């Protein structure tokens, strides 16, 4: 479904954000993208969503190479934007319609879908926000906003769902709900997080970006968790002193900024 070949991204006259990333993704896979802050997780998601274009390397989605020129073709852009959905870390960045109903309908109207009203109702029910359909998105709580964004994206029935730190701004109850929801979702998902303790819940396959922006692990999560050197190198765990009565020892700790 996705082929990434030697993707490099460099900011305009700035530093490298991604270095030689190569990977394949099959339909239905659930991938967790791990990395400390500033390692290029969001940049990779933005490349996958066709918002940024690699300075070197190829990105192919369902057999079609994704380039600036390809996305200028309207028919292709229509298909691609429908098939790939991106949930931004800050839900406020996505919400601009006066009501939740219009917010969910917006994308459907964009791609010229039929039965807009029916789909809006269906996804509002699915995400348990039917009672909020008439309200303004900005009045909602963080968790509800996230649900509105998800409904707006999922109503398009995308093939690939990209989620940027989806639990970063959620309380524990909403986090639990979201994890359950994502686990039941048949869509291919790529989720970024720097929260190792959530990674196991979000997918079985893990990509780890190092602090010099290279993909240093692509494989089962358990393998990565067993490799303390790898996690330490990726700045995903830390060690510090522990005192238990008279005994002092050091052991690894999961970074948990959320």
């Amino acid at each position, binding site marked *: 479904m996705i082929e990434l070949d030697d993707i490099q991204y460099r900011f305009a006259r700035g530093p490298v954000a991604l270095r030689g990333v190569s990977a394949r993704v099959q339909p239905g896979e659930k991938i967790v993208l791990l990395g400390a802050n500033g390692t290029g997780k969001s940049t990779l998601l933005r490349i996958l969503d066709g918002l940024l274009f690699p300075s070197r390397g190829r990105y192919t989605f369902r057999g079609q190479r994704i380039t600036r020129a390809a996305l200028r073709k309207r028919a292709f852009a229509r298909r691609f934007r429908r098939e790939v959905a991106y949930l*931004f870390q800050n839900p406020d960045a996505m919400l601009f319609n006066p009501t939740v109903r219009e917010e969910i309908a917006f994308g459907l109207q964009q791609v010229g879908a039929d039965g807009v009203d029916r789909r809006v109702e269906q996804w509002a029910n699915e995400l348990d926000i039917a009672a909020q359909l008439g309200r303004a998105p*900005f009045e909602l709580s963080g968790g509800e906003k996230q649900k509105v964004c998800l409904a707006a994206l999922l109503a398009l029935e995308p093939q690939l769902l990209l989620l940027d730190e989806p639990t970063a701004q959620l309380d524990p109850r909403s986090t639990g709900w979201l994890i359950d929801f994502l686990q039941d979702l048949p869509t291919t998902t790529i989720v970024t997080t720097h929260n190792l303790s959530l990674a196991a819940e979000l997918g079985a396959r893990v990509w780890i970006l190092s602090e010099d922006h290279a993909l240093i692990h692509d494989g089962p999560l358990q393998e990565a968790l067993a490799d303390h050197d790898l996690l330490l190198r990726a700045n995903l765990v830390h060690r510090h002193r522990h005192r238990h009565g008279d005994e002092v020892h050091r052991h690894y700790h999961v970074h948990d900024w959320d």
Partner: protein
Amino acid sequence: MIRHATRHRLLLLAYLLWVVLLTSVHDLRLLGGALILVGLLSGRAAPRLAWRALRAFVWFNLIVSVSYLLASLWRGDVTWSYLALINLRVAALSLSTFWLAERIDLLAALRFSETLRYLLSIAYGQIFAMRRLLVDFRDALRSRTVGSLRLRDLYRQRAAAAAFLFGRGLRDAGEITLAMRSRGFFDEEHAGRGCA
């Protein structure tokens, strides 16, 4: 620290005088000389600064120059010296400003007003954070958009971004106030000259 501030205050003062000078001189050779002088002062940064300056003024100058040229061709007498004068002057001013922007520690130069210094240093940080937020807003829309949007949607999206920035700004202002208070900024020592 004081010497640093004095140096940058003098630099700002010199720049202001230089600007008045550049707008008071109408001799092409002098303005050309001034442009070369700023170029030399910029040293190795000259090509980069020149490029940035050019990008900042080229469109406006092009419009003015071309319409002036067309208008004078229409009248039948072209004053080439005017075209040279205005473009040299603007180039020299613009290059000087970019030169200053790169050299000066504005916060040090504005040491005479505590208020202004705090104002600008908070504003600087906020500008960068808010620009990043705005990129998110722009990308989120692009991610959900095919082709062109209706004007109504564009305005709604711009307004949502602006209102979010205002709301965010007010919240941040509250937090910054608390942080400043917790660090003793509003205690008597500062209160007196807080708004000099």
